[in-house]
């Protein structure tokens, strides 16, 4: 059996979104900005897709949702443009990010640091969350931008975005959220949250890879990252990728229609998997279940190095993920585990399991069986874990 439990990395394209995008590769290939009939045929589909995005994110018609290639591009656009529009030659010279941001945010912030901007990391608690109180302690009239993720990519923990946006506005700064792991998993209402800027990627909610967006609240000034044309009202140049945008709109519409299913069925499967892991001795899971997106588990299995676990699971058809050092080119331990102050010896034992609405109960049962099997094998090899085969 093959089981895909790495949906926070990327997701399968929804079959309905796939079907909808196909005609725009061969039949309706006109440039939507062209005046002729070929252009108008795609233009109407593009408009429909944009309507789905605005509805899916609950954005006001007066705000802008600009199509980008992915959240990473959107995030980089925010940071670099904030530098040009709100920091350079101005009195504000600080950017605040949480200590567990995705590298798209933290590396973009580090780039601004090289340009002389002060970057402040918000601390996170043992659940991997920063609070509004944490923000109050460091924000000032010098702050130009606060960027805090909506949901964490490793733990799934949901940040108090609305409160943070309110505090940010009290100090006259802009509030951006990396909503990549929240869109399609929880209800998004940009009209209510007070967010100035929000980034997202389609492939995290069963849309295609290579397309995403940036929400820009009405009135927010942002120098374009890409110059060169009048696409997207001159805010982001480059001929629009109509099939992907059409699929993204449909994928978001479907994902939002499945939120209740996600919060009941997927949450139940997630909790079943989590409970099974926690029945194994010396295992922990980061963060309160209720305040997590319903699909994510970040577990630590003592004595089992993360990549070794991935190897065993992969041999048995299960795709998971780990922030563990050995799985990447960086040998440092899982930064999330470190940021939340996990014991050092847990930092290399992180295992991330992320479900989607396409996972079945049978798959989860199989995954439980394989995780137990791999844990037993690797603990029997482990030099740091006193494995007791009778302790099951």
């Amino acid at each position, binding site marked *: 059996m093959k089981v895909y439990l790495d949906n926070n990395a990327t997701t399968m394209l929804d079959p309905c979104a796939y079907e909808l995008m196909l005609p725009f590769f061969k039949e309706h290939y006109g440039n939507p900005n062209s005046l002729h009939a070929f252009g108008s045929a795609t233009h109407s589909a593009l408009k429909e897709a944009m309507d789905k995005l605005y509805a899916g994110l609950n954005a006001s018609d007066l705000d802008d949702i600009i199509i980008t290639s992915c959240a990473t591009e959107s995030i980089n656009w925010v940071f670099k443009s904030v530098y040009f529009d709100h920091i350079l030659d101005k009195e504000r010279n600080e950017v605040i990010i949480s200590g567990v941001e995705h590298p798209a945010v933290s590396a973009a912030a580090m780039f601004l640091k090289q340009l002389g901007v002060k970057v402040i990391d918000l601390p996170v608690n043992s659940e991997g969350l920063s609070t509004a109180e944490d923000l109050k302690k460091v924000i000032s009239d010098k702050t130009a931008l606060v960027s805090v993720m909506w949901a964490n990519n490793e733990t799934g923990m949901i940040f108090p975005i609305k409160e943070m946006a309110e505090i940010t506005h009290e100090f006259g700064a802009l509030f951006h959220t990396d909503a990549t792991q929240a869109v399609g998993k929880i209800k998004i209402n940009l009209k209510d949250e007070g967010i100035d800027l929000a980034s997202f990627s389609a492939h995290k909610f069963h849309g295609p890879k290579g397309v995403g967006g940036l929400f820009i609240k009405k009135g927010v000034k942002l120098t374009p990252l890409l110059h060169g044309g009048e696409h997207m009202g001159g805010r982001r140049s480059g001929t629009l990728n109509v099939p992907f945008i059409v699929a993204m709109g449909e994928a978001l519409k479907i994902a939002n229609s499945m939120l209740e299913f996600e919060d009941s069925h997927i949450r139940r499967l997630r909790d079943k998997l989590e409970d099974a892991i926690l029945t194994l001795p010396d295992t922990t899971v980061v963060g309160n279940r209720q305040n997590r997106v319903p699909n994510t588990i970040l577990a630590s299995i003592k004595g089992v190095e993360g*990549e*070794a676990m991935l190897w065993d699971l992969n041999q048995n058809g299960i795709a998971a993920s780990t922030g563990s050092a050995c*799985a990447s*080119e960086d*040998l440092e331990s899982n930064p999330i585990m470190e940021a939340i102050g996990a014991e050092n010896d847990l930092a290399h*034992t992180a295992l991330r399991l992320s479900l989607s609405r396409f996972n079945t109960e049978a798959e989860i049962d199989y995954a439980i069986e394989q995780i137990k099997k791999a844990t037993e094998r690797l603990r029997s090899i*482990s*030099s740091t874990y006193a494995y007791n085969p009778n302790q099951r």
Partner: protein
Amino acid sequence: MGKNNLIGGSIWDEYSQKVQDRMNAPRHMGEFTEDDAKKADAKLIVADFGAESCGDAVRLYWLVDEKTDTIKDAKFKSFGCGTAIASSDTMVDLCIGKKVDEAVKITNLDVEFAMRDNPETPAVPPQKMHCSVMAYDVIKQAAAQYKGISPEDFEDQIIVCECARVSLGTIKDVIRLNDLHTVEEITQYTKAGAFCKSCVKPGGHEKKDYYLVDILAETRAEMERERLKEMNKEDLAFEEMTMVKQLKAIESVLDAEVRAMLQSDGGDMEVIDIQKSAENIDVYIRYLGACSGCSSGSGATLYAIENILQEELSPRIRVMPV
């Protein structure tokens, strides 16, 4: 970078079949007890290296025949990724049947080579060489324990590149002997920095005590100082030089020992004039960049520049900022 490196891929694709087989079914995984040692008429050695907090830990068990100092049998346990398990398993293979003094000579390169499917293709990707180093290190621990000495006794030099086992002394020697100017040249001559690249400069996948960029800069600076001293020996005393030669000598010293320090803080300096009197040689300087507004320009920094010039060229030099 280049075409083949633009698209990242799974590091697992770069594992040899031997590595994969040993990851899935290590042959020597397990442990020995004192009872096992008694039955085998051997001495039990249990050595540990690494820690779970570092991401890798290995425990090596040896049964050593004390009459012949031969490792009769060995086993291991490991907390680490698959390549750490495979490397440890291979390392145990290489130990069995060897005398302890021979086993100590097994390097991580031997372990990696033994895991190759064919001699031309590395068994693991560069960043995984680290895992075979663990196997090398634990042998030293075991041998030291058996001989009742310290593991450091096997290491008379500081190892800068653990992947290629290249010492600090070797790197300094090749820089000097071959007048090397770049890290790439060091890698060509020694293989240091060719594998996981952690020792090349800070920010790699593992923190290091020594980096090739620093060793190169320091050794080049040492060589420059020695060259200046040599020049001074052969040439006239500083006081007897023409002003042009004095200026050149001053500039050489400043280039070798001062400017890098100032430039690292965003500053610099230039020599404006040299004026000789009966007692002193006054060197007039102007600070540039961040140094121009810096308070220590008339204090600690000034004294440091003056001391260096006095030591290298003449005790009569006074440095005057304008």
